[in-house]
């Protein structure tokens, strides 16, 4: 119980602050949980590890949860993961049951979140223990598996998904082949005049902040930065506070299986690298439709739809942390930003993390638990005020976000202007790339894992001298190849099925 000494009242203060800011980000359409974590990272530079993580985990939970507010009240998902919440949440608002829908969603979020924390707590150490035995070969195969999973679940096509991931790897290789990992210290993939700035490659955080902060704002700017929320807010807000649809916990009667199944789906989808919350909630929503006693009611304002969607997208939070803390592979784009926070504090996430930093691991679990509870209390009792937050105009918010992006990028390496230009470069790249069909999630995962993939790959070949080693090293290697083939087969199978339908 050594970690109890780390649990100061401060930690809870930071968690609550994170949750509140996160809810605001989540509730405003066009701003996401990932953006919240990326923008608030500079605040953690001077905090210690535990408090910093508390803040970021609060932001994560709050950001994912806040998305349900505009989804239910305005039919606009606040974050991608609350798309399925609009299917039933908004019809409920139209029937005068806005408050009921909100509180149903909030309670389901709490359940999904808590469930995923328990799974994280019991599952991550087991997976990490298993992964400790991995040599470079298995580690390389794990990365290959991660990329194949991302690609096979990508929205458009597997090929484009893989292409995006490999492109991410390419960007990560720019810079020096570092001597500290056994490289020869030569720079590559750049022209001579770039050597001064790019000696150590592009820094992770400016890249992330650029893609998720500035990139998103450029997309909005193209659409003219319209405040769609303001024009409709009056009617929707009064509908939400109408007393007609009073909430009571009896909504959940007969929905326990749904609640549990959706939370589990969310958690396990969260564990798959690069698969975001939208996939989790869509999957559990369709499952609920399959199992529902009266499927025709779904989509017309059935609370069970809101339950399925919200329980799943909060289940994601704990799930996405499992591969991050046990293998060092982020489960979604928000946890990818969290990797940045760990690196900042000089901590390496991977199989050894939990064992070596037991106190931090325990306080993370406590922070995550309290973030979920804080989210519930804040949203449940202050929902009317939060509902007003979504009317804050973007022309005031976006300049603040860009300013915070700049602070984050500049301060990361203690004042390097090149990092700020990286931010701009990747903001524009993200904007142009997504137009061309490049997918951001695989790109980011590739970018984060690229350098390690190189070391594992090249060092394995240097010591064994043959490609065959990747197949013959151990039973685990063979098993990983089976997993890789299954994920590729799954993708081809589902795309064939999709084109027939």
């Amino acid at each position: 119980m050594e970690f109890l000494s780390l649990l100061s009242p401060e930690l809870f203060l930071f968690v609550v602050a994170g949750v509140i800011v996160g809810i605001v980000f989540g509730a405003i359409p066009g701003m996401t949980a990932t953006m919240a974590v990326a923008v608030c990272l500079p605040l953690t530079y001077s905090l210690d590890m535990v408090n910093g993580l508390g803040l970021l985990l609060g932001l994560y939970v709050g950001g994912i949860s806040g998305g349900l507010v505009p989804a239910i009240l305005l039919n606009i998902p606040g974050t991608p993961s609350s798309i399925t919440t609009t299917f039933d949440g908004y019809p409920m608002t139209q029937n005068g049951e806005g408050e009921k829908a909100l509180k149903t969603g909030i309670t389901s979020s709490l359940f999904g979140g808590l469930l995923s924390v328990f799974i994280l707590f019991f599952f991550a150490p087991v997976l990490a223990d298993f992964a400790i035995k991995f040599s470079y070969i298995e580690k390389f195969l794990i990365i290959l598996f991660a990329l194949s999973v991302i690609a096979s679940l990508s929205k458009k096509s597997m090929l484009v998904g893989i292409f995006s991931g490999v492109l991410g790897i390419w960007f990560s290789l720019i810079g020096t082949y570092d001597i500290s990992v056994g490289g020869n210290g030569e720079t590559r993939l750049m022209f001579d005049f770039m050597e001064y700035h790019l000696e150590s490659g592009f820094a992770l955080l400016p890249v992330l902040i650029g893609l998720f902060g500035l990139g998103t704002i450029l997309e909005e700017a193209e659409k003219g930065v319209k405040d769609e929320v303001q024009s409709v807010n009056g009617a929707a807000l009064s509908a939400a506070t109408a007393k007609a649809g009073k909430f009571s916990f009896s909504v959940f009667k007969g929905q326990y299986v749904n609640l549990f199944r959706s939370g589990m789906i969310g958690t396990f989808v969260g564990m798959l690298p690069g698969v975001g919350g939208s996939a989790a909630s869509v999957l559990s929503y369709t499952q609920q439709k399959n199992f529902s006693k009266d499927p025709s009611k779904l989509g017309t304002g059935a609370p069970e739809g809101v339950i399925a969607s919200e329980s799943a997208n909060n289940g994601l939070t704990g799930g996405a942390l499992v591969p991050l803390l046990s293998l060092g592979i982020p489960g979604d784009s928000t946890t990818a930003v969290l990797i940045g926070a760990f690196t900042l504090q000089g901590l390496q996430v991977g199989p050894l993390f939990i064992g070596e930093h037991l106190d931090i691991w325990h306080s993370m679990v406590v922070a995550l638990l309290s973030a979920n509870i804080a989210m519930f209390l804040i949203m449940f009792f202050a929902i009317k005020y939060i509902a007003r937050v979504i009317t804050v105009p973007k022309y005031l918010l976006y300049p603040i976000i860009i300013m915070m992006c700049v602070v984050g990028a500049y301060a990361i390496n203690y004042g390097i202007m090149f990092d700020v230009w990286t931010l701009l470069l990747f903001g524009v790249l993200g904007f142009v790339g997504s137009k061309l069909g490049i997918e951001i999630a695989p790109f980011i995962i590739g970018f984060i894992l690229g350098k390690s993939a190189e070391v594992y790959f090249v060092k394995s070949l240097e010591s064994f001298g043959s490609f065959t080693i990747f197949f013959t090293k151990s039973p685990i290697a063979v098993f990983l190849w089976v997993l890789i083939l299954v994920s590729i087969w799954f993708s081809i199978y589902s795309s064939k099925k999709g084109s027939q339908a």
Partner: protein
Amino acid sequence: MGDSFSKLLSVNIDFEQSHMFFPKIIMWLLFLLFLLIVVLYGRKFLEDLKAGRRSIRFFEENFDKIRLFGTIGVVILYFVLMDYVGVLFPNTGLGFLLVSIPFMMSLSFLYVHDLNKKKTIIIFLNSIIAPTAAWYILGNLFNITLP
């Protein structure tokens, strides 16, 4: 037979050139994937294009030119000036503060629709208060390096 097969799969990496070993593989992979995408989807794409089901329009229809390119322009100006002014007041973060205020104002005025007196006042207040608060809290309380 088996011997020549295992020779085919064996590699010897020259340490002097090892920094290009993996990047070369990645670039070949990118190239092959690109070819595969062109071969597999290219024809359908062209057919769709001819039939008018798809357009090669890069921007959205009636996209907001002023706001999009204005954003990029203002941001570039912001970064350049911040560096320039920051040098005048080293280690105080004043460059950041002094440049952020006009930056926020211009971006807000760029984004706002139906400007009126009330909105103007709010924008002015926001552009002064937000950077000052950020400068004070981050730079002075949290000791974060600012330009």
